[in-house]
């Protein structure tokens, strides 16, 4: 891994305002956080809280209205192979096979003759051996998302941004994919930032869970998850974290885990 891989991601006082026909909307208000190299950060928030906008800013797909995002010493202003992103929909190109879709993510600075080896390596990584020549419509939703993860990783990014990547999958596939992403995180040691509305998922995967409040989006609370991996979703500690986060969203008057007899 290059020296860049050891660099800190700094999000400093970032605000984002969208100008719409009906007026302007403040999507993010003064958000600051640091993400250490190799850290797994989960961001939870209700829909419309600007969590996806934050990821798009980190990716460089949009620019901050104020504040700045730095990776090491460099200011992020446009997309780069340094950072890979997986969206809620797999966004595979339907006319390309699995192998071609993955190869599409390889930066053009990479020598052509290495392409096959890189694709093969990543097909193995996401466990899609034997499906190289399949077309996207022939794959299940979970498999499509695996291809999408492989495509985001072939550029060898140091940071992988996951924008509700399992939101469209069924519950069982989702749990399987969470284990998969955990395995990839443990083998590749990339920095990962996961945006989700699934509190379980956030606790299961993250070193830290960042709870965001909506309209305008801002950080409400940061919770460190001090549990060894793999985490047991039914353990008391896990449940405690869960309750804490639920209370952040629904307040004291509603306690979803307390039943009075």
């Amino acid at each position, binding site marked *: 891994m290059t020296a860049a891989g050891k660099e800190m991601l700094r999000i400093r006082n970032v605000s984002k305002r969208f100008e719409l026909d009906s007026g302007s909307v403040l999507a993010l208000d003064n958000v600051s956080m640091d993400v250490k190299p190799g850290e797994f950060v989960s961001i939870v928030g209700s829909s419309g809280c600007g969590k996806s906008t934050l990821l798009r800013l980190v990716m460089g797909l949009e620019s901050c209205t104020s504040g700045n995002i730095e990776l090491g010493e460099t200011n992020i202003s446009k997309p780069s192979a340094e950072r890979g992103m997986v969206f809620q*929909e797999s*966004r595979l190109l*339907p006319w390309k096979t699995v192998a071609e879709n993955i190869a*599409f993510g390889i*930066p053009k600075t990479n020598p052509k003759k290495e392409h096959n080896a890189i694709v093969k390596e990543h097909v193995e990584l996401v466990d899609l051996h034997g499906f190289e020549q399949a*077309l996207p419509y022939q794959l299940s939703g979970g498999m499509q998302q695996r291809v999408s993860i492989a495509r985001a990783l072939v550029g060898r990014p140091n940071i992988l941004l996951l924008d509700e990547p399992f939101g469209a999958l069924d519950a069982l596939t989702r749990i399987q994919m969470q284990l998969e992403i955990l395995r990839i995180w443990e083998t590749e040691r990339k920095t990962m930032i996961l945006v989700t509305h699934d509190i379980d998922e956030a606790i299961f995967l993250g070193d830290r869970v960042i709870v965001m409040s909506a309209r305008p989006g801002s950080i409400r609370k940061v919770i460190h998850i001090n549990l060894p991996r793999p985490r047991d979703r039914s353990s008391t500690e896990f449940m405690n974290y869960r309750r804490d986060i639920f209370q952040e969203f629904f307040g004291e008057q509603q306690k979803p885990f307390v039943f009075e007899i």
Partner: protein
Amino acid sequence: MLPGLLIFLWEYLAHKGVIRSTILPAPSVISATFYDMVVSGELWGHLKTSLWRVFQGFALGSSLGLIAGLLISASPRVERSLLLVTGILRPIPIIAWVPVLILWMGIDEASKVTVISIGTFWPVLLNVIHGIRSTDRKHIEVATMLGKNPSSILIHVILPSALPSIFTGLRVGIGIAWMSVIGAELIAASQGLGYLIAYARELSQADVMLVGVACIGFTGLLIDILLQCIEKRLLYWNVNLSGKG
């Protein structure tokens, strides 16, 4: 079943003299004429001439349509400046161009090829623009995110995504091209299927005319089938096509 029955009835009525043979000859007479014309090579000669004209005109018109479509999609300014011109030119029936083009380009091949290319140009142009416009922005965003340059995005994302629509344009275009060639040949030609029909009319050879008409229909059908085969090969990834074309 039904076509067979109709032909039988037609043959019967023609034999009884209910249908006058100068207006509608019996199927057996038409088939005999068809056979004679195939054997003598006369039909093939006309067909070849027409097909060659269609090929040239179609190639020219569709490539121009493709290029113009790309330019117009690339820049809204080009589109705005051409809006009035295209608005006036597009509704002109292709046949109306024939006399004008004969005046400008003479009576030989050039004017006919031009008529056909005008007929092909419009449907290809409109469908190219539509295809490019309906490219999924999310796919373009992914390509941008992966650091692809504009030409790479065009080749890997926009064109493949527009291909089904472009093919629709080509299919409509070749249909119009085939109609245009006959129209042009009916008005002024010394070879070709259109000429065959026009000349047979002057000689009151109803059977020859009908052979020409049938030949136009069947050739048009074959061209369309051919294009559909190419489409299926090229758009193997298109789920909507995997059923019936």
